[in-house]
């Protein structure tokens, strides 16, 4: 792979620290029966960067994200996470390893309040048993207070204090998206996967969300991998972009490199495929 960036990490022009490779996808191929969703794709994600995966409809972006999150197990290729080959595992095991995600079609607990939803993101940090939590005494009490503190910091960060106690079902779409981001952040992930964070948003909501994504990356140093349709947003936000089309990787590099890549231009302008 062409990669001019130094292996041990560097500092970007705007002062963010980008570290070494935290996750590497090696020759991933994913098939559903006869359909090849992902064909022999390799790329890496560096610590602290915002990495975008883009492509036209049906290019295999969401499948790729599902491979990273452990929901799909590819037939060929390997996922190397923090220097080790990752065996096939259940999504919750992947979550425990520090990978959190949001969904394209919001998947929150609609009947629960925003705060409770965010608290579910802390699940992996709670060790006391059901009975002990029901008694709310000693260790489980301390544990809840600690976790609530983390949740509250995130609520403050994403400026959703005023809906803290509001059931999610009553919120407008744009806010639900933000709550989902809050829940993913509550897990304090080392990699945050965002599946179309701006889908269905108006311009103002997109601006807000972009700001939050940048702030999350900047403030917490969270590595972010995102899928997005809105090219403008992707080009502004990301450090590096992978472009997919029909399950293949057709481009990889900085937004400028990708923008000038003929194959990418063709894919987006719709040159006839053979």
């Amino acid at each position: 792979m062409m990669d001019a960036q130094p292996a041990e990490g560097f500092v970007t022009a705007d002062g963010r620290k980008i570290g070494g490779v935290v996750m590497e996808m090696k020759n991933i191929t994913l098939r559903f029966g006869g359909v090849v969703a992902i064909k022999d794709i390799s790329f890496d994600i560096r610590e602290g960067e915002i990495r975008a995966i883009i492509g036209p409809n049906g290019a295999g972006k969401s499948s790729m994200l599902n491979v990273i999150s452990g929901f799909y197990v590819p037939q060929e290729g390997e996922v190397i996470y923090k220097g080790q080959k990752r065996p096939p595992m259940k999504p919750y095991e992947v979550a425990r390893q520090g990978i959190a995600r949001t969904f394209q079609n919001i998947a929150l607990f609609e009947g629960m309040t925003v705060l409770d939803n965010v608290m579910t993101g802390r699940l992996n940090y709670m060790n006391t048993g059901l009975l002990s939590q029901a008694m709310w005494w000693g260790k489980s009490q301390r544990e809840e207070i600690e976790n609530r503190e983390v949740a509250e910091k995130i609520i403050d960060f994403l400026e959703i204090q005023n809906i803290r106690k509001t059931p999610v079902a009553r919120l407008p779409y744009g806010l639900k998206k933000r709550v989902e981001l809050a829940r993913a952040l509550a897990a304090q992930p080392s990699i945050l996967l965002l599946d179309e964070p701006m889908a269905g948003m108006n311009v103002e909501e997109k601006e807000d969300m972009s700001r939050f994504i940048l702030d999350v990356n900047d403030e917490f140093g969270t590595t972010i991998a995102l899928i997005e349709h809105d090219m403008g947003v992707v080009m502004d936000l990301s450090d590096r972009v992978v472009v997919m089309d029909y399950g293949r990787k057709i481009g990889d590099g900085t937004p400028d490199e990708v923008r000038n890549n003929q194959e990418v231009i063709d894919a987006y302008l719709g040159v006839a495929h053979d």
Partner: protein
Amino acid sequence: MAAPSQDAGAIASIPALLDRNAKRFGNKPAYREKEFGIWQTWSWAEAKEEIEALALGLINLGVQPGDFIAIIGSNRPHLYWVFPAAQMVGAIPVPIYQDSAAEEMAYVLDHCGARFVVAEDQEQVDKVIEVQDQLHQFEHMIYLDPRGLRKYDHAKLHEYAHVQAMGRAAIDELTPELTARKSKLAYDDVCVMLYTSGTTGKPKGVVLSNRNIIETSKNSSEFDSLGPGDEVLAYLPMAWVGDFIFSIGQAMWTGFCVNCPESPETMVTDLREIGPTYYFAPPRVFEGQLTNVMIRMEDASKFKKRLFDKYMAHARKVGGKILDGESVSAGDRFKYWLGNLFVYGPLKNSLGLSRVRVGYTAGEAIGPEIFHFYRSLGINLKQLYGQTEASVFITQQPDGQVRSDTVGVASPGVELKIGDNGEVYYRSPGVFEYYYKNEESTKSTKDAEGWVATGDAGFIEPDSGHLRIIDRAKDVGKMANGALFAPKYVENKLKFFPNILEAVVFGNGREECTAFLNIDLNAVGNWAERHNLAYSSYTELAGHPKVLEMMKGHVEEVNASVAEDEMLSGCQVHRFVVLHKQLDPDDGEITRTGKVRRRTVDEKFADIITALYDGSEEIATRTEVTYEDGRKGYISATLKIVKAKTVPASAPKAVAAE
């Protein structure tokens, strides 16, 4: 006045009051702020430590006596602490409206020549950075919330906590300097400079001395017997004189606790959690709350709605009387007690007003309906009349003498007189020192004997001694036939309808009066929803034929009421338009405190005004709007000119004059 000057020897400044409070009240809560979902508390002793650390940090940064320190942000304890910290080191705090656009900020910052700025967050920091090239004296900026600012060039930027840390580190070295500067603070030194919002022209910097603030705070606290046990919620702009008096002046004088909401959006919840005992809100807040209650009651179950209506009718009958201590029959009292149990109590609780002992409204006239609604619930809501130049208080209503149509009697220590042209003048210990760098305006406002022109026309009721305000003196005019023209009088009557947010009446020097109306999107939107009217934008709703019809009904009601007043019956509105955009401070049409800038409106909407008088049926117009981030855009619309019925001025009055 012997008492205050005796105090003067001991307590000559806000920092001196802080020292007194830290000694006298020590561990009593002084400031609270909701952060991370929990109310964080600072006692007076803790607050003093924080403020002194900041003061030392300011010396460390190079603040000199006489420097101006601008403060930009929302109500937060850390920002309130900047005031005494600045005063301690001999500097003058200048709070600035946090929702001002960068250009407006530039004017104020340049006018006072602030060397230092304390900004709340990235948003405010960005605005100052945007205009810093125009500010020759600007040197350093301190920010409170570091979020998003880490990558900024920190040559001129300092984090608040860091400034405090530097102050604490240098405590031994700098304390003698701080003590020396503190001991020099005198009663006649400048305490604060506040910029008036300015309905005409550029804002003016009103300089208030320690004497102004301390005596006013003392008098007004005694007037309502405020004590250290009181609680206020600080949510109004810090740059406004009222907030300065309530949250700093009176809080420092009496030692009560200042509570800061988590964010502007959580104000309602925070209000309920704190349950303030002393509460101030401009009429629009009370209006908004009442509108919300009414909207929610419309959606409530039939049983609840009936219970509400029945008991509210009873409250309207006797609630105010009970509050004023008048005699009410035992049966009515019992019924009121029941109502309190089932309706008033829970309602007050959900409004967060259960514990309010003293409530004030000011700034604009409040609708009698709204005013009486709150009074009838048993909330001691009163009116006051004041301005920045008076350190707020000119007149206020004593308990038991509360009425919706007056602004009360002269506040303690205030003298009133009415000029030949009907303008109200006052003289008080709170009268400002001067307008900063504006001797001309100082002279034209304050005469040699200390009388200050309010710019408002009014009269004192002979039997009660209460002051009644009619309108801005300069807005009062004559119609073509010589009849008195008082636009505000009519506008207020129009604005008392929940559906009308803003009204501007024209007619000076003309045959007939006409008006612009702004719909209240909340109230009218809800009404539209209930009547199955579809609309996609403010402009469309505002121009909807059904909405126009409703507005016509309101205008005609007002006309009937205006006709009853012989003096002003010529001010009936003959034609009106419902504007396609809301009048907005970002467009300069109203001030940040919500007062109409008539000249701007006249110029900007000249085409519509012409159409109101030339007999057109409708007018196509295009208006420039400014978005929050300073970008400009245009709204186009065709406005229908609606004719309203008027009551002939010659019609005999239904009610005979007293």
